[in-house]
């Protein structure tokens, strides 16, 4: 199957709860084979968007399409979903529960049992197969919840905060699984507040603020819109020292090291010259903003 089909398209969806606008004319898409990171502050509209994709909530306007067609009930059954509100049957045995969910998604009993077993092994829960869910630790319940989203071999993955509450080992397993599913041609979207993880794992990132998509693209593309920064270590410079170069602003001082931000088009060599004018320059480093920094900038701009 080629890459331009099997795309999940969110097309101008809007949703309001009485006076509050949760999602406002939101448009983006997730391509086959792509891991899409969905970030935003609490209440920005991430969960509402995912619920609309799953059809658990109805949108006031707009449409969600997969493979070029509006999502219907049959297509939605093929979406692996991990809701923000975790929930499984507390008294049902772990493997039995996964098998049940697999069958509800249209698997045969035998296939569902085999899939449940292999996912439990993958998440290191093979020995808890016949335990009641409520007997498991919260972290392990979370792993079962992930297995529930994966057990039937979904065509699309929509995961709301899948990494919250996982230990580092489980985070690695989960990250591998998402990559592997995407490589198999599945569009993957997940929300997270752990921006380092998003930066490391995602092909593209969407930043949502008050129901609007305020930035969307690869991390490099998001950086391209931002400002250049340089660390410069000038031990002989007076304190304070602000370089006095047009278009260059001091952001932070750390001992004798200083972080400057350069306006677009400003030559960083001017900053280096100013440094050398004070004496020796021990360090001159170009720093790329982290996703966290991009995120804060974008949110500040949106608020402005």
């Amino acid at each position, binding site marked *: 199957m080629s890459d331009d089909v099997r795309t999940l398209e969110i097309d101008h969806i809007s949703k*309001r709860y009485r006076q509050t606008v949760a999602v406002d004319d939101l448009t983006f898409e997730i391509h086959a084979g792509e891991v899409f990171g969905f970030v935003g502050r609490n209440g920005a509209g991430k969960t509402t968007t995912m619920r609309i994709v799953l059809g658990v909530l109805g949108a006031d306007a707009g449409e969600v399409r997969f493979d070029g067609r509006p999502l219907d009930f049959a297509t939605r059954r093929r979406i692996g979903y991990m809701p923000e*509100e975790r929930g499984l049957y507390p008294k049902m045995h772990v493997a039995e529960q996964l098998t049940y969910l697999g069958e509800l998604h249209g698997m045969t009993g*035998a296939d569902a049992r085999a899939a449940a077993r292999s996912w439990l092994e993958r998440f290191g829960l093979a020995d808890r197969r016949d335990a009641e869910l409520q007997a498991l630790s919260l972290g392990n319940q979370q792993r079962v919840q992930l297995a529930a989203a994966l057990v039937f071999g979904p065509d699309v993955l929509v995961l709301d905060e899948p990494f919250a509450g996982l230990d580092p080992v489980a985070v690695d397993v989960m990250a591998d699984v998402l990559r592997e599913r995407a490589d198999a041609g599945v569009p993957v979207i997940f929300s997270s507040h752990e921006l380092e993880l998003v930066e490391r794992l995602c092909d593209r990132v969407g930043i949502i603020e008050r129901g609007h998509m305020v930035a969307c693209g690869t991390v490099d593309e998001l950086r391209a819109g931002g400002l250049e920064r340089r660390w410069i270590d000038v031990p002989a410079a007076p304190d304070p020292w602000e370089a006095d170069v047009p278009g260059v602003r001091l952001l932070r001082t750390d001992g004798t090291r200083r972080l400057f931000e350069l306006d677009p088009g400003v030559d960083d060599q001017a900053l280096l010259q100013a440094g050398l004018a004070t004496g020796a320059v021990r360090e001159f480093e170009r720093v790329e903003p982290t996703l966290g920094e991009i995120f804060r900038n974008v949110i500040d701009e949106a608020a402005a």
Partner: protein
Amino acid sequence: MNARSFGLGGTRRLPSIVLVARREIRMRLRSRVFVGGTILMTILVVVGIVAASLLAGKTNPVRVGFSGGSQALEATFTASATALGAKVTVIDIADVTAGEAQVTAGTLDVLVTGSATAPTAVAKSAMASNVESALSLAAEAARLSDAGLSPVAIASAMALVPVQLLQPPSAKDNENLFASLALGIVLWIALGQYGNMVAQGVVEEKATRIMEILLATIRPSRLLAGKVIGIGLVGLLQLTIVGGAALIAVAATNVAPIPALGVASILMDILWFLLGFLFYATAYAAVASLVSRQEEVQSAVAPIGILQIAAYLLVYVALPNPSGPLATVCSLLPPFAPILMAVRMADTDVPSWQVGLAAALTLASIVGLTWLAGRIYGNTAMRLGTRVRFMDAFRGNARG
């Protein structure tokens, strides 16, 4: 693995209703509360029947001792007592004083002394009126015989007045009606219990928050229908176990005659029970869909409970005139039909169009209620924590 225990779910894809029903059955059969409750109910019912048979055994028959000349009355007394419906045992007493001591001690109920034509009865604190009448009749026969009447003349002189009924009770005997009524009441109580189980079960998915996953996979009406069917089958199993134990206990202790209900009448009762169960279970599911926490279920389902009690009371109001307008109309309406039509059919000959109409209306309302319950459930699923007003839930703006 026990997943194969129902013989399903191997290499076939099963409809979601079947999957949901199967899960309900498995989970309940595994639950200690359900298994323990069934065992306890069975024990209580059997113990109750055995206790009733022991108590009933004490009151029968009345022991009557005859001494001296009155012993000539024994044969006629026994015959009269039987005719009057009193069970008696006749004992010869040699010594009047010893006999009185037995009456005081309670080992003898009545002591008859004196001659056959002028007997005297001695009892402890009371004497059954039919025993007293039987004794009086026996003494009267003895006096007539003493006066020279032939046995034939005595019989004709003492013949009972014939009674002619202008409106005899229907061909179906009272025993049938009683059995049907008793069965109806037991099933009606069971209905309430299983209806509540359905209501609790409907909230389960919301309370455990699993419904957000489920709603993306299964339509709410199918989820609810699967629940109603699963819990209904478990309920039937429980009823069969407890009812079967009760029947065996009754047969073993002989405490009451097991009414010989015809196969057709039993099948009709089962059919009406199933329709009643489906109607009320779906109604319980619909109102339970409005709430999202277990502790809110009781107040939400209260109106259905009241409707059920109203239907039950209607039986007593309508029963004296099973073909009257009140009974006829109410027995066609779905909330009342399952019990009222069943009782009417046991009591009188109901035109078959009425039976068919009542069954069709009930079935149609079950389908309608399932649709309604699914709609309410789907519309309220994402509004956790608050009880949703009915009209909001129905219109669907509860989503917002």
